[in-house]
Every structure is written in C-alpha cells, then in structure tokens.
C-alpha cells in the first residue's frame, strides 16, 4: 500500500480483499539497496541536531553509519539502548517535526535523510535475525517494582528496570500489552502484528511479568501496591475522551474515534468493522486524521473532517494533513459542530462557521449541514481521574517532579498521563526509561 488511496476502482463497494489490502504497510520497508543508498547520504554529523530533536536522543549518525558498514546488529543496539521501542517509533514518529525536521540536509535544500525508515531497517533486521535479546539484566537487586499500564511508558519503564536488576510486575487493564501501540496507532503503520512482536521482544530481557485484566481502581489500589512493592510506576495514558457537549450525543452512530480505531485494530477481518457511508470526523489532531483516513480505506463513500480552526492550528502534522488529502478525505476548516440530527440514529450534523475575533474563536452565525450516518469524535483525550484518587493532578495531568515522582513518595509516573513533551509514543518511551532510572536512584538512596 502506498500513502495514496484512490478508492473503489469501479464505483462498486470494495471487496474484502481490496479492503484488507488498503491496510498494508503505508511505508514499505527499505530494501537492502535503498538502505545502503540512504545511509550513505548521512553526513555523520558531530553533535548532530537530529539527536537533539529525538526525545530519546538516539545516536542517529552512529546507527546510520553502522547500517552503511553492514553492522545491523550494532545499529539496532545503538537505537534500542536509547529507545527500546525503536521499532514502533520508526513507524509512527512524526519524524518531519523531530529528527528529520532538523536534519542538516534541510539547510542545503536537500531532502532530509530518511532516519525513520533507516531506523526501521535496523530494528527489523535485528528482530528477524533470531539472535538472543541484545540486553542483559544486572545482578538481582531483590527490589520489586509495580508498573501500571503496559503501554509504551510502562513497558519502557519495565524493561529499563529489569535491566537494572529489579523484578517487575506489570498490571494491565486490557487483555493485551502495548497500550495504544496495540489499540490506537493507525493500522497501516503497524502491520503484521508488530505491536505484539515488539512486546515479545522486549519481554525477552526476563524479570518482567504481566498481569492482564488488572486495573488500578479495580482489582488493585495504590495502597496495596505500595505495601507490596518497593516502588510503583504509573503509565496509564489518557483513558477518557472529551465530549462535544451537544444534545443527541448519545444517538446511535456517534462514537469516539478512539473506540472506532480500537475496533479496527482488534478486528480479525477489516470487513467486520462497522463503518458508515457518510462519515464525519470532528477534530484537528492526528487521531482525527487517523480515524478519517481509516474510515475511507474501510470503504466509506464520503469522509469529512471538520475542524473549528484553520490548517495552521491543527495539531496534526503537515504530513498527516497531506495524508488525509491524498486519501480523499474532505477537510472543512473554521466550522464548529452545533447540532446532531437524527431520530435515535444520527442522520446529519449542523455546523456553524467560525472565525477569530480579538484573539478568540467566535461563531459567525452562518450554519450548514452535512449528512452523516457515523460521527467520530476526536476532540482530545483526557486523564481518567477516578483510579488516580490521592495523587495530585495539575493541568489535567499527574503532577511529577524532575525525577518523575508523583505527590506520593515512591510512586512515579510517565507517558501521556504526565506533562512532558508532546503526547507521543517516543516521549512516553523516554519518560518510562528516565523514570526507571530515577526509581533505581530512589531505591538505592
């Protein structure tokens, strides 16, 4: 599959095979030849800006040089020692605003080096090699660590803690590990069950056990964990979504984009996923784009993404916005939802045109309607505060200090549930690893 999607070839509904094919790899892996050619473009900068731009500070010039010398094992290890989810990050990072965006080649007007693709080449290469796990555990410290949530933050923390010699138990509410790697990232970025393959790879380090179906606030509480473990890490992500606050939001067909994507990611067959014919997606972030593009690829005739501000203000990156365009998603800007039509089941939505007035977004009074048999809400995720009772919350996120410690001593947190950089996989991996190091310092103190 490529970045472009042109829809049905003959105007009829797409058949199952076509739909399945629509979810193939959006960025097919580099061939050996492409990887050699691309790696030789890297200037091997010193104190390179790409390294600074990467939240996990992967030594990019080094791993690319290692690809060019044919040292794939070494290259992958360079990546994974900074970012144990280098495989997922290579697939999903918005590289155009991270490493590739800061590549010095941009300054000469050349295309940046395809760092993400090269990273994938190295990590996939290692994972296919059938070699022992590249990292070792330090001598056992006898310390026990509880990790809540098996997303990128939790698993990264677990791996780094296991390496330090601690014994880790991960409590995960869902039946599978990986967090949004498994349930949220776009299907065409994570083909061939990569999320689970990466989890398996990560667990090869040993010393990590995962207990599924165990949720904080349900079967377990912070108190009980504090009593049983030497330190606790919270990596629960953002479990709730914002509501539109409109009448009729409970009508059939109005749902959270996150749930829609989760269904899609978990479906055995893509044709099992319930998708409308006229789909309206509300929001301007990557989740909105992912939902819209995937709805289109599932076979929706018309998908319209409606955002209340302009393209400049969308948090979706330029690459993501372009992706929506070349997949045939209609984008309507400067419009906010004001009403949901339909009788029990959604039939359409009405919008009011907006504009900025005196620095504030205001309605213009002009309205229009769009037919819709499915409305996907993607207007932001928020912390699910319930299970976190007792922890100090600040600006909608768990409050942590420089050492990732929460308001409760011995309880640490990282990932989307805290405020570090952007809510990105790579940031969560970095949080998890850094929190693990802080926990080790805490345990040794």
């Amino acid at each position: 599959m490529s970045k472009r999607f042109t829809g049905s070839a003959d105007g009829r509904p797409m058949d199952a095979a076509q739909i399945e094919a629509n979810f193939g790899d959006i960025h097919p892996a580099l061939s050996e030849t492409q990887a050699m050619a691309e790696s030789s473009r890297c200037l091997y900068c010193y104190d390179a800006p790409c390294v600074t731009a990467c939240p996990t500070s992967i030594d990019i010039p080094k791993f690319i040089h290692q690809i060019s010398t044919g040292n794939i094992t070494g290259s992958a290890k360079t990546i994974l020692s900074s970012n144990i989810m280098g495989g997922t990050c290579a697939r999903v990072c918005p590289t155009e605003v991270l490493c590739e965006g800061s590549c010095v080649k941009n300054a000469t007007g050349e295309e940046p080096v395809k760092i993400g693709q090269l990273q994938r080449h190295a990590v996939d290469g290692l994972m296919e090699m059938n070699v022992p796990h590249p990292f070792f555990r330090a001598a056992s410290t006898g310390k026990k660590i509880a990790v809540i949530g098996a997303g990128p933050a939790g698993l990264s923390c677990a791996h780094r803690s296991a390496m330090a010699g601690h014994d880790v138990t991960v409590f995960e509410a869902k039946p599978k590990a990986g967090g949004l790697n498994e349930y949220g990232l776009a299907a065409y970025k994570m083909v061939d069950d990569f999320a689970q393959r990466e989890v398996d790879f990560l667990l090869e380090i040993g010393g990590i056990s995962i207990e599924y179906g165990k949720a904080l606030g349900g079967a377990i509480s912070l108190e009980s964990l504090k009593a049983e473990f030497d330190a606790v890490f919270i990596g629960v992500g953002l479990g709730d979504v914002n509501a539109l606050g409109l009448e009729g939001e409970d009508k059939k067909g109005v749902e959270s984009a996150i749930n829609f994507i989760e269904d899609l990611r978990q479906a055995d067959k893509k044709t099992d996923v319930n998708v409308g014919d006229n789909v309206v997606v509300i929001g301007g972030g990557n989740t909105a784009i992912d939902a819209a593009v995937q709805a289109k690829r599932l076979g929706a005739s018309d998908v319209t993404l409606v955002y209340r501000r302009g393209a400049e203000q969308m948090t979706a990156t330029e690459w993501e916005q372009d992706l929506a365009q070349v997949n045939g998603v209609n984008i309507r800007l400067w419009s906010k939802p004001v009403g949901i039509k339909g009788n029990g089941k959604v039939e359409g939505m009405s919008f009011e045109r907006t504009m900025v007035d005196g620095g504030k977004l205001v309605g213009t009074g002009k309205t229009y309607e769009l037919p819709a048999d499915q409305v996907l809400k993607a207007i932001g995720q928020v912390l699910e505060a319930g299970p976190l009772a007792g922890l100090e919350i600040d600006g909608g996120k768990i409050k942590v200090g420089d050492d990732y410690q929460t308001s409760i001593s011995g309880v640490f947190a990282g990932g989307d549930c805290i405020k570090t950089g952007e809510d990105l996989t790579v940031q969560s991996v970095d949080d998890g690893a850094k929190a693990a190091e802080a926990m080790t310092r805490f345990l040794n103190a």
Partner: protein
Amino acid sequence: MADLRCKIGGVESINPFWLASAPPTDKKYNVVRAFEAGWGGVVWKTLGIDPPVVNMSSRYGAHHDSNRGVLGINNIELITDRPLEVNLQEIREVREEWPDRVIIGSMMAPVEENAWKTLAVKIAESGVQGLELNLGCPHGMCERGMGSAIGQVPEMVENVTRWVKEVVDIPVFTKLTPNITDILVPAEAAYHGNADAVSLINTVNSIVSVDLDAMAPTPTVDGKGSHGGYCGSAVKPIALNMVGEIARNPETRDLEMSAIGGVSNWRDAAEFIALGASGVQVCTAAMLFGFRIVEDMIDGLSNWMDEKGYQSIDDFRGMATPNTVNWNDLNMNYDIKAVINKDECIECGRCHIACEDTSHQAITKVAKPGGGNEYTVIDDECVGCNLCLHVCPVQDCITMKRVDDGQSHLTWPEHPLNPMRLAAE
C-alpha cells in the same frame, strides 16, 4: 569551438580520447560501437601468439563506496582469448570502415627477440597506426614471464622496445606498469629503446576485497582468489603522479605520454594533459557506464577550453608541469587560515570534530542561545592544513584565506630552523 585534434606519439587523432586495451576493445563489434559514440581511437585488446589464452569464470572484483558507487575494479583476465588472425581481420575491416579513427595494436610476447619481432610485423601489416607493448599486466601473464614480469626489469623494457622499433615503421608506445618503485626507471628504459611514447599506467596489483564467508579474495574462483589489476578512479592519483614525474624529469621530458588510469570525465583528461600527456586512454569508466561517456568528455573539454581561451590541446598541455616541484622548492612563508562562511554553515560539526580530534584544535563549537552550534576558526591555532575544507559537505562553505604578506619566499633549504641550511651567502 576549441579544436580537439591532437597528435599522440606521432599518431593523429580527432580527439584525445582513446579506449585503453581491454574488454571494450576486444573485437570489431565493440570498437565500431565506440567509434559510433565518438571515441577518437582504440588500443585493441592485447594480441599474443596463438594458441590464444583461456580465461576463467569470475574475473572482476570491485571496491564500492557505501552507496554502491564503484571506486575501482580489479580483474584477473588475460589478453585476448581469440585467435590472432580473427583479430587482425577485424582490425583490417574497421580500419577501412573508419579511416579517420585510430587503431593501435597492443601486443605481448615472451622475452624472445624473434617472437616480438614476428608478432609486431604481423600486427603492423593489418594497418594499425601504431603498436603498444603491453609490459604491464600484473596477473596471470606475468606468471608466464610476460606483462609486468618484463615491465619490472628495465633492461627488458629497453630491449623489447628496441626489437619492435627495429622492424616496424609505425609509432611504438611502451605501456608501463605502476608496480615498481620509481616510474622514471622503466620510462628511461623505454626512452633508450627508442619508444615514440609511453602509455601509463597499466593496472595496480591488488586484492580488492576478501569474501569473509568464503574466506577468499575476490573475485573468487571456486573458493580461491588471486591478486589482480586494479583500475578506475581510485588509481587516478597514482597515475597523475607518474605522468607528472616523467614530464618534469630532464631525462624523460621529451617522451610523449598517452595517459591512462582512472580517467572518468573531461576534467580528469584535462588534468593529465596539463601535466604533460598528449592524450588519454580510458577503460574502467567505459566499462561502468558504456561508450556514451565520451560525449560529455568531448563536450566538456571543449567548453572548458573555450571558457579558458585555449584553442588547441597543445595550448594548455604541460602547463602544470613547471608548477610540479619538489617539497624543498615550496614557499614556507605562504600562510593560509580556514574561514567558515556562517551563512552557508549547516552545523554538521564535521570540521570541528576533525580538527579537534585529529588536527590542531582550531575550530571551536559554541552552543547558540536559540539552539544549534556556532563553529569558529581560531586563527592562531589554524595551521592551514585544509582538512576542514575537505570534510565540509557544503561546497565553498569553508575557504582558505591567505594571511602572509605575499612577498617573501623561503624554502626549507634556506629555513633558519633547518640544521642543514644552505649557507646564506
């Protein structure tokens, strides 16, 4: 438009671009295609005494850069593996069909006067405009006492050249091997044997890589490899030096040269000619890209000559020779410093780390307030070595600025710190 006609060792050519004796000149089919493409001449693939040699399967190795660009290739091929008469008949045909192009017959024989003389006469009778004596092949043929086995013994170089000169009245080019310590020795031998010109260089003895699975040199023939002849752009610097040495050596400066070794484009050709060559021969570049590369060689050379105001090849031939001197003749008062153009700098840090780790710690790296680094040359520490300029990926971002007064001249023999300084008076 510049006139590219030239005379090489007494042989007139429509341009200075000939194909060297090698697979591209192995038979009529290739040579006709080469002439169609525009090559001025060919040195036919080396002819020997029948029965023809037999070649192996797996013949070439390559030295790649990381982008699969070929820096050089090596080969373990022998001379032509077709009967002499077949080659001579084809030479006759092409001579007739392409009267304005040059065919030089390359030849090789054991070190016996009669063998060389008989073969030389046979080839000359086919109508070639000159003969080239292959005294350079560094693999296979040398194990039979030919090729570089002759080229490495100055007396044999002289004798073989003289024998051939005695029996033919067409120009004779002696092709030299670079697998010696001093190129002047065989060049002088060829001169004393009355060669009309020398062709150089033949291939450099080499192992181009080792297959780490087979644990054998490449190209690998059934699990084993042999040293072979290295050529292509990687050998150009070696060839340039040898051509330059012959041109500035009083004993050999009258010897004409057909320069060979890594010529890949018009600029390479111009460099060899500037160092004194009369024309060039090309093998690897054609093997890598086909005969069409000559189009830009012709076009590029003539455009450059027009820009420079050179009307003919002779106008610039040898112009760099007087400027090719011994180290002892260089001006030690000349002083240059690196200058980094900050507007062009992309902050890759390569100049800094190169100078910091391996040169003179003359480029500072200072974090800028808004992010990124600023790189600055410390003039007092810079020795003007050029390393930063070479590692910088941006064209003309780093330049060297002259800082001495430009007046005084001081060589090492005159230098006050030289314990063996020549008496000042």
